[in-house]
């Protein structure tokens, strides 16, 4: 029994040790298979990432957690809207500062009133010019448009701006001027 199994082992060893005849076309076939394998790398990784991102998922969130996230988003939006160092100013509707000047000798107070301040004499008091003399000035930011205005001297005397076009439709018996602010 032992003799037979030794022979069998010897036979197997001889069989394994014999030279193997390889078909010369195998190399070509293997290389061909490799060439047709799907490409690995960036494309495949991107596709996998896209699949991961677009696959629907169930997210469990407590009401308190949801509120916390909403508060965070709101705080972030507020912080971003508050400071934008590089933001360009809006072209349309951008305000420009205009200096109004009137000569009013012996006036105690002069107010600038017009469409831009609801014709409220208390809103835009004019100041005596730092250059001295009877000049009174006020600087008002104005968006593009056409505005009617006038100067109110000592709370009772109306003056049109001599340096600006007069409003044609003075229906109230006191003169007004017009300023036109362009947008381009």
């Amino acid at each position, binding site marked *: 029994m032992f003799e037979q199994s030794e022979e069998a082992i010897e036979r197997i060893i001889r069989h394994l040790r014999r030279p193997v005849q390889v078909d010369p076309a195998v190399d070509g076939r293997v290389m061909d298979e490799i060439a047709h394998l799907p490409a690995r790398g960036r494309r495949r990784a991107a596709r996998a990432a896209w699949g991961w991102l677009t696959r629907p998922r169930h997210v469990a969130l407590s009401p308190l957690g949801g509120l916390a996230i909403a508060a965070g988003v709101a705080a972030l939006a507020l912080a971003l809207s508050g400071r934008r160092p590089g933001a360009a100013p809006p072209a349309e509707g951008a305000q420009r500062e205009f200096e109004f000047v009137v000569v009013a000798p012996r006036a105690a107070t002069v107010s600038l009133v017009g469409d831009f301040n609801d*014709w409220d004499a208390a809103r835009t008091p004019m100041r005596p010019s730092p250059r001295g003399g009877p000049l009174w000035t006020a600087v008002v930011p104005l968006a593009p448009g056409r505005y009617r205005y006038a100067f109110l001297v000592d709370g009772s005397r109306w003056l049109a701006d001599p340096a600006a076009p007069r409003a*044609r439709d003075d*229906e109230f018996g006191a003169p007004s001027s*017009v300023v036109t602010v*362009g947008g381009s």
Partner: protein
Amino acid sequence: MTLRSLLRAAAAGALAATFGATAAAAQDPRLGRLDPGTRPLVAVVIDSARAAGLPTEPLVQRALEGATKGAPGPLIVSAVQRLAADLGRAREALGPGTTPPELEAGAAALRAGAGPAVLAQLRRARRQTIAVPLAVLTDLVAGGVPVDSAAAAVLALAARARDADLVEFRRSVERDIALGAPPTAATAAAAAAADARISQVNAGARENRPGRP
């Protein structure tokens, strides 16, 4: 009085109170500066304008101007009514997509004597907003330039001129008139000068434009 009639009266009272409160809330608080007799009449004009899709801010401002200048109530009401009518005419001439500043400038131009056809021509001539061309036209007429001359000059410049060019053109006309030039001649000369300046700027822009391969 039956229970049913009592309930009906209560419901009518509640309805009236609700409507009254809504109307009061809808009314602009700035109109509180008008006297009590004028305020509701002006509010009606403003509400009608709003319902017609017209801008109401110019109407509020005109009423406030009257109040500040101490004008009598009927004068304020008629001024606001006239302005509302002018705004409506301006929209008719300029089309439904017109912006509030354009409508306001258009109303002023119509009041100055420009015809609706001029407004429509300006709308066609210029791709940008026509608020400033209309305002310049109105200001020229207010300065003594005949409407036809002012309209012809503004129409000639409107297609290519920037707002700033048009304002500068108006200043130039006013300067020349102040120096004694006849308004029509001053307008024609300033328009020619502005046109030449714009052409020069545009030619410069063309030269500075990067070339194509």
